[in-house]
């Protein structure tokens, strides 16, 4: 079992796993930001709702009840988004309703206590981390994979930005679904590496940045 580490401590692993399947839309930066915005509203809203209802839902139907809350919120946000930007809803496809069964949303709802303020704040923090992660993945995948960056239309500047040097010969594999896995995997390894360097410079011997199956000491290999 992967230790996903909850919202306390280091939520990065939880967010990294929670990026799937949303990471499928990171072939365009504007879509990624739109989906991150939807998740922010749904996450904060459902955490507040879960906090308000804490202790009033029998444990046996807690998961279906949380699912109902999340899916109603997703439906409401989808309606709103459809009114503002129908083509964005179209382009997000099945990944917009899939926010309702997002691991992040349901995990966060299960963890929320009865304090509404605290629930809203921690939901906001997780959603912002998710948005940042999705945006970075989108910058890498769209920027290097297609050589273009799509931003929201502002006035006449509707055309995507061209990335100098890459736009003629993009790394097309990054724009494939496989590129989503590879980008997330390598970025996560980079974060681990930076963190482990920091840990080592503080001369602590704890391997708290590591996520995954426990290994016998030394088997992982100090470089």
């Amino acid at each position: 079992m992967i230790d996903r580490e909850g919202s306390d401590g280091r939520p990065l692993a939880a967010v990294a796993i929670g990026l799937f399947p949303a990471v499928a839309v990171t072939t365009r930066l504007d879509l990624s930001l739109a989906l991150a915005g939807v998740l922010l509203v749904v996450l904060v809203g459902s955490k507040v709702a879960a906090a308000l209802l804490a202790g009033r839902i029998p444990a046996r139907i807690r998961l279906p009840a949380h699912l109902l809350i999340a899916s109603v919120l997703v439906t409401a946000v989808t309606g709103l988004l459809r009114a503002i930007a129908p083509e964005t809803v179209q382009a997000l496809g099945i990944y917009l309703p899939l926010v309702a069964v997002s691991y992040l949303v349901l995990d966060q709802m299960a963890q929320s206590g009865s304090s509404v303020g605290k629930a809203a704040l921690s939901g906001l923090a997780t959603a912002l981390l998710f948005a940042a992660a999705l945006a970075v993945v989108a910058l890498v995948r769209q920027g290097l994979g297609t050589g273009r960056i799509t931003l929201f239309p502002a006035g006449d500047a509707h055309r995507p930005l061209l990335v100098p040097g890459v736009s003629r010969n993009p790394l097309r594999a990054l724009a494939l679904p496989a590129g989503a896995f590879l980008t997330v995997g390598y970025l996560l390894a980079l974060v681990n590496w930076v963190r482990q360097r920091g840990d080592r410079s503080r001369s602590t011997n704890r391997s708290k940045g590591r996520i995954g199956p426990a290994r016998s000491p030394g088997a992982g290999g100090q470089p």
Partner: protein
Amino acid sequence: MSWIAIVVGLAFANNVVLDLLLGVDQGIERSDRLGAALSLGVWVALLATLAALLTWVAAHLLLAPLGVPFLQTVLFVLIIAALVLALEAVLSWLSRASRLSRGLERLIVPLVPLLTVNSAVFGVTLIAVRADYSLLGSALAGVGAGAGALIALVLLSTIRDRLSEQKIPRAFEGLPIIIITLGLLALAFAAFGNGLLGGPWGR
């Protein structure tokens, strides 16, 4: 679109896990042992098929006549949750009768929360409705998606088994190497879409 194309598409060319990125989160979590991966894959296959059937009925006989297609997300999520609870109840009822289903119950009970929120199951119901498949086509989409999830999970868990004996750089240990493995598998599966299956069945 022919029925073969639906099944083969979701199992290989557009593999639910490796191409559509559905069910990846639970796949990563449950692929540490082959047994765990197999049981999750089999239940996903069964549930995706049943869910695709039931949601087709709900979409065509309930949502469309009432003119409330926007309730799709809420209704589909609830149908899947009810289906999982019903499956659990049937198995626990049967388990009092025979020893075989007692084993089955032990297999599904820890999976109940996972199956309820499995994005492969929910995703395939959405794909079937949006592609406007027939009733049979929806069921076949469920079968194909389930087969695709099973194949991807078994491949991932056997590769992880081999990887556990290898020396891996510290920064890549755990989650990063699993996700990169999935990426390489996805690259391999991308060949199905363009080369191998592009000719005979089309897309």
